[in-house]
């Protein structure tokens, strides 16, 4: 386990800022203690200082997970967000998409959100903007990228994709093995 290098920090923060914008600083400066990011097995974990201290007792090969896993660095040094980061993305998300109850299931099985399943969308969403997907009951279901801007969404026909799927909570079951 080690702190991120500058390069890695930059890559990761760029990715995060696509979803939560400048709210990133709320993640780092928290009123309830110092929180930090650590890299372990190519994965980025977000934890409080207190837990970090305790985790240093554990040898590297025996440590499985600390705090919350945000995502992992690929072999090409890109950063990929995991669904496990949703707990921290959802409260700070700038752009949101709500899906209709009928389309919930489809999204949770890993499909893109179609216009027909689109319940609401934040105004002024740009194309290719990172969005967090909610159910109509305001339960966060995952995140993705807007395929169309809000204006375009109004015009397109029902079968057009409006949000590209990136991660959904169904992955907790579907890909439990690769989460961390």
């Amino acid at each position, binding site marked *: 386990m*080690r*702190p991120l290098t500058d390069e890695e920090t930059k890559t990761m923060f760029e990715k995060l800022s696509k979803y939560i914008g400048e709210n990133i600083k709320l993640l780092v400066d928290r009123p309830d203690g110092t929180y930090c990011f650590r890299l372990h097995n190519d994965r980025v974990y977000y*934890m409080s200082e207190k837990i970090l*201290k305790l985790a240093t*007792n554990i040898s590297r090969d025996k440590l*499985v*997970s*600390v705090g919350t896993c945000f995502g992992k660095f690929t072999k090409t040094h890109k950063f990929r967000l995991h669904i496990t980061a949703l707990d921290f993305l959802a409260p700070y998300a700038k752009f949101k998409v709500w899906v209709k109850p009928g389309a919930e299931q489809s999204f949770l099985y890993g499909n893109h959100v179609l216009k027909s399943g689109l319940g609401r969308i934040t105004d002024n969403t740009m194309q290719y903007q990172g969005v967090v997907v909610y159910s109509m009951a305001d339960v966060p279901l995952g995140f993705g990228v807007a395929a169309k801007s809000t204006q375009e969404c109004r015009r397109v026909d029902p079968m057009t994709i409006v949000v590209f799927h990136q991660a959904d*909570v169904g992955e*907790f079951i579907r890909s439990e093995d690769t989460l961390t």
Partner: protein
Amino acid sequence: MGRKLDPTNKVKRGPGRKARKQKGAETELAKFLTDEESGPKRLSSRARKRAVKRSQDSKNIKDVAKEQPKKGFTDENNEWLKPAKRKRKIDQPESEDDSDDQWEEEEEEEVEEEEEGGNKIGKKGASLGIEEVDDDDDDDDDDDDEEMVDDYGALEDSSDEEGAEEGSDGEDLLPIERAAKKQKKLKEAMTQESEEDDDSGDDDEDEEGENADADMDEEDTVQANIDEMDQFRLPGAEEREKEGVLPVDLQTIHQRIKDNIDVLSHFATKREAGRERSEYVSLLKKDLCTYYSYNNFLIEKLMDIFPLSELIDFLEANEIQRPVTIRTNTLKTRRRDLAQALINRGVNLDPIGKWSKVGLVIYDSSVPIGATPEYLAGQYMLQGASSFLPVMALSPQEGESVLDMSSAPGGKTTYIAQLMRNTGVIVANDANADRLKSVVGNIHRLGVTNTVVCNYDGRKFPKVMGGFDRVLLDAPCSGTGVISKDPAVKTSKDEADIQRSAHLQKELILAAIDSVNAESPTGGYLVYCTCSITVEENEWVVDYALKKRNVKLVPTGLDFGKEGFTRFKERRFHPSLRLSRRFYPHSHNMDGFFVAKLKKFSNTVPATAEEKEEQDADTSEATVATDNPAEKPSKEEKTKKSVPGKAGTSQDKAQANGTAAKKTTNIQPKGKKDLPTGPKKPKIAKIDGETVKGAEGKKSTIKTAGESKESGAGKKGGSRFEKKLDQKRKSPKKNNRLGKNKFKKLKKMLEREDA
């Protein structure tokens, strides 16, 4: 003739699958039907009498039924827990109500015409005697099958010959009654309806006759093999051999088990002369093995644990699944909101009981309960009711550090986290790396952020870190409490398996105790639980820990469950084991479970067994010449036992151990030999401290310069631990000094006593 639904005489059947839903419909139906029924049926006087009797009977039955669940569940669980219903159906004859109902109409129609005929027969019977009645019967019922008549005759013969109760009863009856009975039987063979057809004019006689009839009727409906039932006899050796060859009939075996247990529970009165209890027991064992398909070993174990009546309940309860229960994740939602959301998805649920504020029972569901969007969003966790209990017993407080020693699949870990509201630190350990994946998945799904997941062997954990406020040890076990989940346990376990897991559990519980910090201001607790019900894996392990470490049992805080055993067969455990709790599938409708809560009152590790033995040897050597040897060993034992017992007394916690240890040594009149043993303990503590310190040091050297911040943090942690170790090191010394004072006092006392 069409059957009419009579709402006034509604047959109560068991609560069906949809009974809960359709209450409204029933009342409506009743309303609707009363209109139709407004003109009551004209009943004959006898029919009315019978109706009264029937209603009384059904009332009685209902009362019994009402009282039964209380017998099963002594706690508030009876609200949601229903007594186990059997999965394997045995062809039981219809209950009396049912049969009555079915044949009522025919009966009523026939009553009038038969009254006359019956009277005739009765009078004839009275005047002419029995033989003629027989003939008469035959004449009367030409349409009866020949076979049936023959059958009946045979039955009568056999009953007479065997001198069974029936026969003797028959002899006591008046001729008229006998006649009545015979005719009734004959008719019953065909239609089972003409109970009261043969009446004399006399009412009193008629009453008696009816009583007898009713009795007969009950017996008849219960079983066809009455003569087997009224006196159970053990099958001979050749019969058993035959049984081995022929395919087994489960029904007869079930009947035999019932009868056998009946005999065993009233052994003095119902036994067959000249038969030993062991013969009955061995037959029962064999039958149970066959009927429930257990192996011999496990049945024996279970027979040791349960009384016979409970044993059957337990075995039956293992045949059915426990209800599906879920736990609300209070980090993300509230139980009320979750229940509403699930009801909207077509799930039929209820709160689990008064004892839990987060549990829900799922009765049925139109959607898979483990894949709803609510589940995926982490609003609840699928978890057995019994898994709530150890965490509730642990009652972790906010800001504490908690260790879950064998955490997979993370149900209990996440419950701990939600009780701590995501504060403090939880270390979730498991020996199996594959199973840890589910822990990680569940932790993230439920939004738990205060957890470190690691993959150590629990036995080595004290070397990694210690000083936890609370530790939960859900030890790996043989799983004899969860047979309904995993029926393979029935046959796969044997003595060696139990011993193996018991040994592992003993190692683990010591490691768990060593990881607890006794000086913690809020905690210092350990909860030990298993999903096994064998004594070897539960009470014995805890008893072992009480002997080996400075821990005491404290109440679990669970207000239901059965007390742990303090004595089992030849073993005697510490009396405080009463504070542990056992849970059974048949009495609590949750998996079989054992929970014990221990409080650690001193961080020092008492002298090990070998050391004590050494001491014993020394003392005996030293005192052979001086003291009478008979007295001393008993004293030794006493003091040894009092080591864990001291916990309960008001003595200073830290002191307790020291003094106790001192006492064991001080009983010798000349205290030469105990001098080396005194400083041993501090030395051990010091060695421990050094090793831990050394490990810390190694770690700090590994760290690179780039992570100065982190290493600083590590040092801080290290220093904290060192402080604690310092305390540890100091305290034994203190004990030592105090002990010396005590030693002098004791010596004086002993001298006085000697004088």
